[in-house]
């Protein structure tokens, strides 16, 4: 039989290649999306510059930038792993992208791995940008970089679980609204730019259990005060990560 243009020659690409291609495309889609960039780059950058240079919020003793940078890094992680991922995945589900990819050679866990890789790449870009800006504003960080890295990874896992849970269960429009609302509420009430002390003793303890509070508090302990591993905050993030990822795994609907 002669070989024509369309003569079948099926086969999956090697897994690493599929996952790399998927992660590259997801990252490209994110960086191309104006609203996503506003959320992940513009807002954290503006907040860092504005509140470091203008004395609006009382950030306690020491340089404002030393208080703010850990909080803004936590916000950046939340904006990508939770808000951005929830909105993007919600619309991918709505527009049948997840469905179409589910019948491609890429396995579902490969798609999720690619999404995580794309989140991590975006976070690296954010952290590099914010770190450069913070140094320009006079930031002087302390602590062990490995501890910071572990906190960031735990935070990413916690936020990804919650973001995917939302994207996989709610309608895309509801996810869009809810993810933005949560972002705004946690920005104010999650110890990102406003110290939790401002919310009174009871409020402080409840709000301290939120993932963004745990991440910003943990990062602040290390980066501002040079503390060792903040086990309490890491524990809170780990619980959120386990609960969120398990619930997402259980309830996520692909279409």
């Amino acid at each position: 039989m002669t070989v024509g243009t369309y003569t079948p020659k099926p086969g999956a690409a090697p897994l690493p290649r599929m996952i790399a291609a998927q992660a590259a495309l997801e990252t490209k889609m994110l960086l191309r999306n104006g609203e996503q960039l506003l959320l992940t780059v513009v807002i954290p950058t503006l907040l860092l510059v504005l509140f470091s240079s203008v004395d609006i919020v009382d950030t306690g003793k020491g340089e404002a930038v030393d208080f703010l940078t850990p909080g803004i890094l936590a916000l950046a992680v939340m904006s990508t792993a939770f808000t951005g991922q929830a909105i993007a995945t919600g619309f991918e589900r709505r527009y049948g992208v997840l469905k179409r990819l589910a019948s491609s050679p890429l396995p579902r866990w490969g798609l999720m791995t690619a999404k995580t890789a794309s989140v991590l790449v975006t976070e690296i870009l954010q952290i590099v940008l914010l770190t450069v800006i913070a140094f320009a504003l006079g930031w002087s960080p302390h602590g062990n970089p490995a501890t910071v890295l572990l906190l960031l990874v735990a935070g990413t896992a916690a936020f990804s679980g919650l973001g995917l849970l939302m994207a996989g269960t709610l309608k895309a429009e509801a996810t869009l609204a809810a993810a933005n609302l949560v972002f705004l509420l946690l920005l104010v009430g999650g110890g990102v730019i406003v110290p939790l002390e401002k919310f009174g003793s009871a409020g402080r303890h409840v709000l301290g259990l939120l993932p963004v509070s745990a991440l910003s508090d943990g990062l602040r302990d290390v980066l501002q005060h040079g503390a060792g591993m903040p086990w309490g905050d890491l524990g809170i993030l780990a619980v959120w990560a386990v609960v969120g990822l398990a619930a997402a795994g259980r309830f996520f609907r692909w279409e």
Partner: protein
Amino acid sequence: MRSEPVVQVQALVKRYGTKTAVNGLDLVAQPGVTAVLGPNGAGKTTTVETCEGYRKPDSGTVRVLGLDPVRDSAELRPRIGVMLQSGGVYSGARADEMLRHVARLHAHPLDVDALVERLGLGSCGRTSYRRLSGGQQQRLALAMAVVGRPELVFLDEPTAGLDPQARRATWDLVRDLRADGVSVILTTHHMDEAEQLADDVAIIDGGRVIAQGSPEELCKGGAENTLRFTGRPGLDVGSLLKALPADCTAAELTPGAYRVVGKVDPQLLATVTSWCAQHGVMPDRISVERHTLEDVFLELTGKELRS
């Protein structure tokens, strides 16, 4: 060509809540092009999506290329191509970008540039998917279904909403796929599409296959076909009848208006015209009324196909 069926569905039942979408459906598709024809809500998409592994049967068995679409999904997915009824593309992605991406998920993909050219997707340029026309979106989905060089392609209403030119381009591609040994399962509610493309047609209504066969076979059954012509009144119908095959009837309905009823094929037409030539008759307004799939469908279901 392989001789074993590409799709075997047995006693498939699929319910959504209290609604039964597919109700004991049996379907065997041989290599080649199989059209699944039926009105909206007949169960076409549910059947096809069960074959694609998207839905788990409530009961019954489904085998695609000999595999269970749910259990053997990892093995099956690289071998099939899927065109969903709509969507399936990142709203911010460009057509060639998305096609290239799907190609990268396969070991031996088609040449993307040639496929873009072939389906006229080059004009999409840097436009993102959400701003493409409906026809461009459809053609991109079609391209994504074939780019991985699958053995079997599922096309769910591939020409819905296309203009005639784009429709023709899609038909041409389906014919080329068939010629190169790719099997195609397509759903449609266009009779002409099934007649033009399919080796085999399965008519679905109410979640079951109510008739299956080649377009010719399906059209042969049921009512007889008719040939009419006009000539001078009082021709010798008996002599005409003798020239015709045994199962035909011929009559002069009104003076000068003749009707032949039977299996109307090219041979019959030639017999009638040569009989006219022998008798010096000019058969004016000669016409054949052949049974179409549309008629078959109407007879079987009492419903119009297009709703």
